[in-house]
């Protein structure tokens, strides 16, 4: 029980990557066209964080895992129907706006306030997990801001691996430039870990885990508090789709030798 951890995973929901996205401007600022009807998934890197957290909790008996997620209740419920079947968790939903355009500082303030108020949370054993960047705003700042607000000054971003030692300290691999990892050793919790891909495959759906999770998820969703996000002086001058559409030349009738010759000439051309 020496390494029983309290792991809080912050994870948003994002449009399914295969969906076509079109920006629109409404009375509250930019958003996505038909945003509320686009199929949503758990943010990919945050999902990696969730699976790593669950694996870590399973290896350390007595640990507890919370999933804190901010989004419209209806969308959270839809996404949780799948996520809940993956790993045992306690959902802490916050009813708020969806998408990448709200300010990250406001999002972080709401998340930090919620985490600080979690019943039974021991901050001395807290590992705060999340994706190092979201697939919406992609700023890579929210988790860091939450950590600062909670007073955690051991933070790691782009994490691909954590090895917890018996004494509670851990080794962590962070992505740095040039395809390398920085290896650090931290004395132990509390710490913030913004995950990249990690090393774990997506867990298979487990209906038993799903049924167990849903017993607490549905009441939590019903009781989710509403959060309003301030703009913090952020304004959007323009929001648009990239205009560049290439005129593709499709080559169907060349032999491998001819294609290779053309490619080698292209590679050598400056």
């Amino acid at each position, binding site marked *: 029980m020496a390494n029983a951890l309290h792991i809080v995973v912050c994870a948003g929901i994002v*449009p399914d*990557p*295969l969906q076509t996205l079109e*920006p629109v401007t409404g009375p509250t600022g930019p958003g996505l066209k038909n945003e509320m009807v686009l199929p949503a998934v758990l943010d990919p890197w945050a999902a990696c964080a969730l699976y790593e957290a669950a694996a870590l909790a399973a290896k350390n008996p007595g640990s507890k895992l919370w999933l804190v997620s901010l989004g419209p209740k209806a969308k959270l419920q839809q996404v949780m129907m799948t996520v809940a079947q993956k790993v045992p968790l306690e959902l802490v939903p916050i009813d708020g706006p969806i998408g*990448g*355009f709200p*300010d990250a500082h406001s999002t972080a303030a709401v998340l930090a306030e919620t985490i600080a108020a979690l019943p039974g949370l021991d901050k001395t054993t807290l590992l705060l997990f999340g994706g190092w960047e979201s*697939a919406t*705003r*992609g*700023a*890579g*700042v*929210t988790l860091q*801001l939450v*950590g*600062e607000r909670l007073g955690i*000054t*051991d*933070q*790691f*971003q782009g994490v*691909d691996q954590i090895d917890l030692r018996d004494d509670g300290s851990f080794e962590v*691999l*962070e*992505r*740095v430039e*040039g*395809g390398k*990892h*920085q*290896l*650090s*050793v*931290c*004395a132990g919790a509390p710490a913030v870990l913004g995950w990249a*891909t990690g090393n*774990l*495959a997506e867990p298979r759906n487990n209906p038993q885990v799903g049924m167990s999770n849903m017993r607490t998820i549905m009441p939590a969703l019903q009781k989710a508090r509403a959060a309003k996000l301030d703009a*913090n*002086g*952020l304004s959007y*001058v*323009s*929001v648009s*789709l990239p205009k560049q559409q*290439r*005129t*593709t030349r*499709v*080559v*169907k009738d*060349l032999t*491998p030798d001819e*294609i*290779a010759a053309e*490619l*080698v000439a292209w*590679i*050598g051309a400056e």
Partner: protein
Amino acid sequence: MENLLVLTHADETGSALTRASLETVTAGLELAARLSAPLTIGIVAADSTSAAAALASTGARLLAVSGEAFSQARYATDAAAVEALCRAANATIVLAPGSSRFTRVAAGVAHRLSGFVDTHITSLGGADTIEASRWFYRQRIEAVVSRNVRPWFLLLDAGTHTAFAGASGTAKIEEVAVQLPALRTTVSGFRAPQQDQQTIRPDAKMLLVAGAGWTKKQPDGQIHAAEAGELILGFLGATGASLGSSKSLVDQGGEGNSVLPFLTHLNQIGQTGSTPRHAKGLSTCCHGEEPHVVGWRFIADRRAISLDPNCGWTRGKADVVYVADAFPVMAKVNALLEAAKA
């Protein structure tokens, strides 16, 4: 009036500035000139002397945080250093390179200073104000943002400005004292493939992306993963290209399928991977759907080899698509490149 601070840091030598830092200096000089604002440059390094000398010709005020504690990237020390530099400069606008080192701490420092941060900035515009361009939804939507609150931290993506290259000279440095917190993290070093096995080369002119088709069954009904690996590595060796991969190909290792052993998640390009900057990109055995192609946003000249004439690349995402089997084509490409070298 704005008060502009450019943050820089040393590379692994501990004294020379990183290329991304020098690019940010260029951006700072341009912005300071446009806004007629005073410019301060802050340096975080084990030894800031040579870094400061390289910046002497900027004419900017130079602040530095130096010492062994700052030779390595670590949240507690870097956040304290950057906070001290910002307070010493009394900056309203802070420009910093979007390096792993500063990306790790910039938001935290902004919070300590009651400021705000925006990252992945690709350009700075505006007339009397500052308007910053950045991408949302993994390079699928572009926006121009502004803030009327200060201090405002802006982290610039690498490759968006030319690196500053002024004459070296004698510079006056103001050392800034930093009160360090108790340190609980020790940086042990780096893990990377051996030099000749490193397939991620950010400075390469060309990107080769390998898709899942390389490890699918070929016309003879067999999988030729070993041959695929040889072809890909042969191309990288002949051209010096950087290697990217689709998520599906990297994931195959975790699913017990044939894999290319030199690929890791670090090679991933796209929705859950990186968005590198190279002049040219060649996609092989990848279907070119949106989750992959969002990682190609900053690849200027794009070609693809695909067996599918209706693949995503043909829908305005590549300049040229060769409808062909990549195995014989890449074998011949490698042979021609080797012959040219000989």
